[in-house]
């Protein structure tokens, strides 16, 4: 019995640091990452990418995708905060992992990176489809671009693409401009147009198309032009983030180090943009950027500090909220000029942009509309690349009380005067009437 107790204490003390370091609403950065590989050679050939993650404090757990021991959760607790699927050709995951398990993992707010490649298995395609991304159905198709390829002495089939058509969002790909084009070699995908959560981060040039480079093209390719997405991201409604790309080699050391020259351009870059692009993107995926929280939602009448239980129509009120962005290590004030508050009852009665003090405090003051009922203060903040904020606070608004109306109306003075002069007349008349002789 005593032995069991020792084992129990030991296992708790081993597990404790993991339990404390994991993802939580207070520290939204992922910590424990499961990396599933087809082959451990990828660990070495893509080590620059993994090292950049390790240096940022991630705890990478490398497993083979068909390892029978892999599991995402145990006893209802997720063992990892994020999953990297660098296993394009896996036909069946080992252990208890399957498509449903991965989707559940994402549905519970965890992050996912998927890298497919030529001949990607149906399993990986299925996972991608669940995320709103459709890879080219032709298993041997690759993205080919005869005018936007990367000039190379040894790659003549124009499947090595230099792309610089990035999404214009500082939060997703970092504020530092990516100068060099990104090398890509793999399969293209298209986005489901009705899915508003998936975004094209790196798109192919208009001259690109997706086809098998070795066979003759007899039917029009399914994917062409800038509709081809090379790298896409998804931010789910629960703020889980997913990165999907059709090229595993774009993460490789070789592409990270390789110089790049886009065809038709005379500029030759010493180093491709892959490292910067993918590192910055991973910061976004792992919630080191673009993760917002709103705290201290307050409202009160102008000149007061306490929050009233209800407002009267035409009251002047002040609304304030503090918004912070997670920087990977701490919460930093979030500064922008497009946060808006709504005073809402079935439809917004007031919609006002909040002004901020550059320290994360957003405030606005406005007059309560002269309509009574149960209103809500609503902040629905959605911005490209940021987690969405949805705050609402209910507050009733009452009309004037009977004694709150204006008391002495100048227009009515003649009526008052008439009444009082009659009263004065009556008073005098009472003397005259009674005592006149």
């Amino acid at each position: 019995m005593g032995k069991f107790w020792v084992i129990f204490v030991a296992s708790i003390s081993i597990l404790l640091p993991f339990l404390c370091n994991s993802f939580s609403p207070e520290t939204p950065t992922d910590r424990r990452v499961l990396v599933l590989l087809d082959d451990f050679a990828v660990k070495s050939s893509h080590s620059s990418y993994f090292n950049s993650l390790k240096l940022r404090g991630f705890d990478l757990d490398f497993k083979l995708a068909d390892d029978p021991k892999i599991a995402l959760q145990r006893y209802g607790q997720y063992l990892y905060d994020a999953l990297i699927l660098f296993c394009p050709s896996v036909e069946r995951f080992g252990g208890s992992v399957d498509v449903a398990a991965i989707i559940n993992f994402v549905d519970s707010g965890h992050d996912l990176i998927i890298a497919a490649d030529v001949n990607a298995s149906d399993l990986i395609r299925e996972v991608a489809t669940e995320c709103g991304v459709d890879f080219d159905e032709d298993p041997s198709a690759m993205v080919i671009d005869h005018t936007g390829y990367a000039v190379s002495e040894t790659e003549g089939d124009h499947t090595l693409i230099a792309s610089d058509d990035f999404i214009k969002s500082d939060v997703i790909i970092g504020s530092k401009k990516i100068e060099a084009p990104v090398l890509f070699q793999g399969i293209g995908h298209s986005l489901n147009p009705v899915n508003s959560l998936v975004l094209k981060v790196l798109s192919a040039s208009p001259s690109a198309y997706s086809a098998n480079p070795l066979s003759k093209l007899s039917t029009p390719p399914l994917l062409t032009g800038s509709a081809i997405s090379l790298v896409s991201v998804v931010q789910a409604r629960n703020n889980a983030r997913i990165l999907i790309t059709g090229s595993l080699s774009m993460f490789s050391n070789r592409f990270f180090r390789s110089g790049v020259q886009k065809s038709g351009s005379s500029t030759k870059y010493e180093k491709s943009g892959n490292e910067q692009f993918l590192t910055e993107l991973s910061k976004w995926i792992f919630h080191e950027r673009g993760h917002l929280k709103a705290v201290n939602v307050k409202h009160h009448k102008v000149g007061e500090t306490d929050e009233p239980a209800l407002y009267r129509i035409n009251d002047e009120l002040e609304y304030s909220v503090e918004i912070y962005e997670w920087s990977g290590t701490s919460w930093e004030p979030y500064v922008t000029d497009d946060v808006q508050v709504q005073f809402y009852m079935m439809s917004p009665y007031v919609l006002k942009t909040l002004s901020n003090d550059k320290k994360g405090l957003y405030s606005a003051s406005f007059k309560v509309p002269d309509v009574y009922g149960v209103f809500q203060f609503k902040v629905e903040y959605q911005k490209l690349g940021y987690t969405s904020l949805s705050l609402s606070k209910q507050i009733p608004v009452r009309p004037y009380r009977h004694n709150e109306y204006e008391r002495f109306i100048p227009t009515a003075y003649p009526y008052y005067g008439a009444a009082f002069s009659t009263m004065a007349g009556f008073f005098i008349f009472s003397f005259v009437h009674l005592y006149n002789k």
Partner: protein
Amino acid sequence: MPTNLNFEMARSLVGFTVLLLFLSICESASFFQPISDSHRSAAVELFSPDHGSFKSLEETYEALRTFDVLGIEKKPDVTATACRLVSETVGSSSSTLKDLFYALKANSIVKCKINDKAYQGIITRLNAAVDGASSLPDFYYSVGGLLLVKGSKGDVHLADADGIFRLVKAFRQSDGRWRFSSNSPESSAFAAGIALETLAGVVSFASPELDQSLISTLNSDISKLFDSIEKYDDGALYFDDKLVDGHDHQGPLATTSSVVRGLTVFAAVTDERLNIPSNKILGLANFFLGIGVPGDAKDLFNQMDSLACLESNRVSIPLILSLPSTVLSVTKEDSLQVNVNTVLGSNAPPLTVKLVGVFTSGSKAASLVESQELVFDDGTGMYNLNNLPKSIDVGSYTFVFEIVLHEPEHEKIYVTGGQKKVPIFASGLIKIENAEIAVLDSDLGSIETQKKLDLAGQNAVSLSANHLQKLRVSFKLTTPHGLAFKPHQALLKLRHESKVEHIFVVGNSGKQFEIVLNFLGLVEKFFYLSGRYDIELAVGDAVMENSLLRAIGHIELDLPEPPEKATRPPPQPVDPYSRYGPKAEITHIFRAPEKRPPKELSLAFLGLTFLPLLGFLIGLLRLGVNLKNFPSNTVPATFATLFHVSIGAVLSLYVLFWLKLDLFQTLKLLGFLGVILVLVGHRVLSHLAATSAKLKSA
């Protein structure tokens, strides 16, 4: 954790076929390039000391060795700190055997000054370690250490070399693999490499007096070990340990590296020639080169150290044939250049490179050229074929090369790997002529409008057509040699204003490319969308240097109205930038206050309301009112006064009611005042009535 990880790594073998795919993608050219400058810059980057020194002596040695192999100038501070670390370790008696071993190894590169006394101490320690060794690593470190001391000091002897040889050999397994210690059950190729290196050390201490039969059996063991070698599709060979729970499992690179190190060191000390096919050595070299530039310091060291071992081994030295460029321009008349180097990029012995044949990719036709020799250029050290054969037009080809060594005895030293197939892309400028776009009448096929296109420049044709007409786009493509050219990508794209796209493949007959779009048959495909369609033409191929994507112009289509059940065009993606962003502000419009007359007017009318009172008072004065009827007796006078005071109080109450009191307060007070008023009033009025009745009766 590492145990667990290694355990998982062991399973990696299952997925190794997958690595083939990965390698073939990463290194899409199926030939291997020797070590280049990218390795040097990677080495400098990966082996960057933390605050001037490396984490451990092992890492220090790895860094020094890698720099040494790559010929990188050692930074003086690295050498100095390494020397300090080495002398600290060597001087202290508490340093571990492993640290001592790596200190000596690092010393063999940096050549620090170690005094004789320290050497004596080391020798004593190492000899004691050899005597007390019970596991393979113990032997490895101690024998290796002694060998290194011998290298720098000279007079070192190993007592009972024969016995130690037998002791080490006891770790041998029947399949050519070795065990780390006698009580660990599993055998590994990694251990085999270490064992070979140790035995090589023992042999070099006691070469002549050693029993040669021991070495011969070892030879057959090495052959057995090579039977378990594993193979990639592209010819790379490697070793890996199929251990399920070996705690020292290292992965294929470290394992292969260990075997290569052991093998080459052992081959260097024995007189006997090892019985290993030279192609296997070439396969191992291909494995190390195929890795490219590793991203990990340890991997880079393993790669570099193994390649350095292969560079000058006694079994066979691999020669690597590589091409600086496999994309050759026919138009620019690029010359074909071939490099033949050793793995580390140094010059090969005199040899001839032969172009055996050129084959069109994907076809089994006969060679396009005669077998010919390439010309060696002393300046660049490359073998050139100055002009591509005339029979080579644009396209993708497979060139087959063969290396022929000049000296017959070199055949035994070097391995070339026979014929070498290299995919070559011959690119060129394609001539585009007779580009035309025309609108045809459907029935007769007569041309309604026709415009010439200049596909090299800008075009902006504007056409219009209805559903009974046809659109024809045609052009002609010719290769530099005047032959027909069929590009991989010949697509015509029509894009409607609503961003619905339609793509057509332009077909060809010989040089002539033509596509005819019969709009009558396409109305359904076009979703009955009339309006402006932008036309784009994309012509491209891997070997076409002037691949193009041109906006030709637009066509105004007049299509019939869609029938009831026509399919709707698919939804188009929404621009993500417009989806978000602040909304327009909304301010509530308040009810306007009621209109009121100006205050002056109210005041004026207020004044007017007092006029009747004034008139009443003046009238009373004019009538000559008096108060003679006021009771003169004290009691009635008091009551009369009280009566009027209470009337005044009631009236004042009304004023107060107006000013501040509410109805309940007012009624309460009024009830009180009313009772007084009634009582007092009754007394006064009855008194007045009595007085007047008296008067009347009088």
